[in-house]
């Protein structure tokens, strides 16, 4: 499991050139900044189309949208073949490249247990093309392809549970984290960097433009997602050992998180109630797993 660190321990060196193509208050840009501080310069960053267009002080390897997991595989096998296994092979993808079009390649690389680190900055929609729904978009969220209308209340299915899909591959490490919890984020990147095999980290990274809130609220929105249980922070080793990393005595009502964002503002109390029920019930499950210290399916 990852080891707690303090804010003072986060490296000062900047490897992300901000802002790239980021908007004000961009959650994924902060995710990039924190992540690459820990990964360091001995890293090859792999990219697929995503938002924002990250710029890092590391060499890069571009891949087709569907082929992030393949490019990581190719680089890792080449490094193995030429004896440069010291280099970090990292994918820095969005939720589209991870949850949807890139899922097959990542699943295959996970099953082969390639020694690569997949880091997903999850902003819960296709923001690069202007906020269309992805399978990471939560229930009821409005996007340009799940708009409000007389026949639509926004997205009609919940967020795909990708970390648990990868946990089911039995990979060495899968974890979730948030830009509002930088020490948790940094600790998990450091842990993943230090172990062999396929690692995956999903970083919850709000997008003020797509989620419709003021750019100065990014951290607060991200924090509320965790505090309400809408985006729980946990880690799983070898698909078995489980640990909940943020465990308040009581969750805050999920409505606090939803009301902070324009994409959920159309929701009725009844709809909020449905989301609250889903969130509480999943949280109970996670608490049970945390108590047992292992994934219970």
């Amino acid at each position, binding site marked *: 499991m990852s080891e707690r660190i303090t804010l003072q321990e986060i490296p000062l060196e900047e490897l992300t*050139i901000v802002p*790239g193509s980021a908007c004000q208050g961009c959650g994924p840009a902060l995710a990039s900044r924190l992540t690459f501080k820990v990964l360091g*310069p*001995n*890293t*090859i*960053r*792999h*990219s*697929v*189309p*995503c938002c924002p*267009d*990250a*710029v*890092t*002080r*590391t*060499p*890069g*390897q*571009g*891949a*087709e*949208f*569907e*082929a992030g*997991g*393949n*490019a*990581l*595989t*190719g*680089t890792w*096998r*080449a*490094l*193995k*073949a*030429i004896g*440069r296994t010291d*280099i970090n092979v990292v994918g820095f993808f969005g939720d589209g490249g991870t949850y949807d079009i890139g899922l*097959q*390649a990542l*699943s*295959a690389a996970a099953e*082969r247990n390639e020694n690569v680190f997949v880091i997903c900055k999850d902003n819960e929609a296709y923001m*690069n093309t202007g906020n269309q729904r992805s399978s990471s978009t939560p229930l009821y969220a409005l996007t340009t392809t799940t708009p409000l209308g007389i026949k639509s209340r926004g997205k009609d299915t919940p967020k795909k549970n990708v970390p648990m899909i990868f946990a089911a591959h039995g990979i060495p490490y899968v974890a979730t984290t948030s830009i509002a919890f930088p020490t948790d984020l940094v600790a998990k990147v450091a842990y993943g960097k230090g172990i062999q095999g396929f690692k995956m980290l999903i970083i919850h990274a709000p997008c003020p433009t797509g989620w419709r809130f003021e750019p100065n609220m990014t951290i607060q929105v991200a924090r509320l997602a965790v505090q309400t249980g809408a985006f729980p922070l946990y880690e799983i080793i070898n698909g078995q050992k489980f640990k909940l990393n943020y465990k308040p005595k009581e969750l805050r009502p999920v409505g606090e998180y939803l009301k902070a964002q324009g994409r959920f503002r159309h929701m009725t109390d009844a709809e909020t109630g449905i989301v609250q029920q889903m969130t509480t019930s999943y949280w109970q499950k996670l608490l049970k797993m945390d108590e047992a210290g292992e994934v219970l399916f």
Partner: protein
Amino acid sequence: MVFDVMVGNKACAWGVKLSRVKVMSAFPVTPQTTITEYLSQFVADGEIDGEFVNAEGELATQAIVKASERAGARSFVCCSGPGQLYMHHPMHGTSSGRLPVVMATVHRGNKSMQPDHTDLMSQMWTGWIQWYVENNQEVLDSVIMAYKTAEDKRVRLPIALGYDGYILSYTAEPVEIPDQKDVDEFLPPYEAIPSILPQPGVPQASRGMGGMGGGRDPQGAWKTHHEAVVNSKSVIKEVNDAFGKKFGRKYGNGLIEEYRTEGAEAVIVAMGTIASTSKAAIDKLWDEHKPVGLIKLRTFVPFPTEDFQSIGKRVHAIGMIDRNCCLGLGGAGFQNIRDTLYDLSDRPKILGFYAGLSGAEVRVADIVKMADKTLKAARGEKIDSIIEWPLLGTVSGEE
């Protein structure tokens, strides 16, 4: 020097082994499948010191070798028919990235399980060099030549090596296996240009949305790439000559091979295994005092324009046998030859024959008929049509 009797797919795997390939990736598909098995066994036995990646599909295999080649490992990929089509997207990235990957395409047509050239022909616009070879010895030799050509600093382009499925892939022929020492002298180790490995103390930066954006001159990138493909012709010839000097075998001039064209009034043009069968037909025709030669079209992309212009000045008719059909436009070879010869002031007649599509058998007698018609056209006799489907309705194996 060792001789063995082996099927085309084994010859291909031997070419990969002798070329000291470091990363291989493939997804099994008939009739390419056994290459994956031979390579896996070579790796399992320690005879290839490299990585074989069992990928989840052909698109994946191409994306894998694109990355491994860029990271500094000589890489190989192979496919067939539908797999070749599925692989299309990252093929553009491999060639745009000027990565000298070598790929074997074991032909399987787009309308059947049987061979024709439509799988690789469908990739005409991907910026890959395309070779079509005729026997198992040429398969093995061409893998080695392909790496030598592709990795040449004047070329730096991927090469697809097409050979007919079943007819070669699963048919055994005697093949000479070159000495590893000779191959090592011929083919130096691969070096990625530029290297993408992190350099301590050297500032590096990457921006990235999957390598899109096209750089500062995205339109110029098309021109540069196009010119690189066209200009590879001289290197293909050079490598073919050098291979001939080192190993005692070469394949025409690398682009085309002329067979009994001296004094010929007409030539037929054929690719792959049909070129092999055509040699027997040409011998028969000369025995009957019919002066028809054969052009084996080996390099299809870049098209050997200059060679055909020179042939066009020497003969009165050219009959192209296309084992493909570019639907709505016609045979790819036929179109290219007509295009190439248009500017000659005294043009020969150019005839087109569709043959061997979906694995239809093309016999010596069939080729003799096509050559006869071409000779008639050369002598100014009236012919019914410029383009024909002479073997229409024949099923593979039927009399």
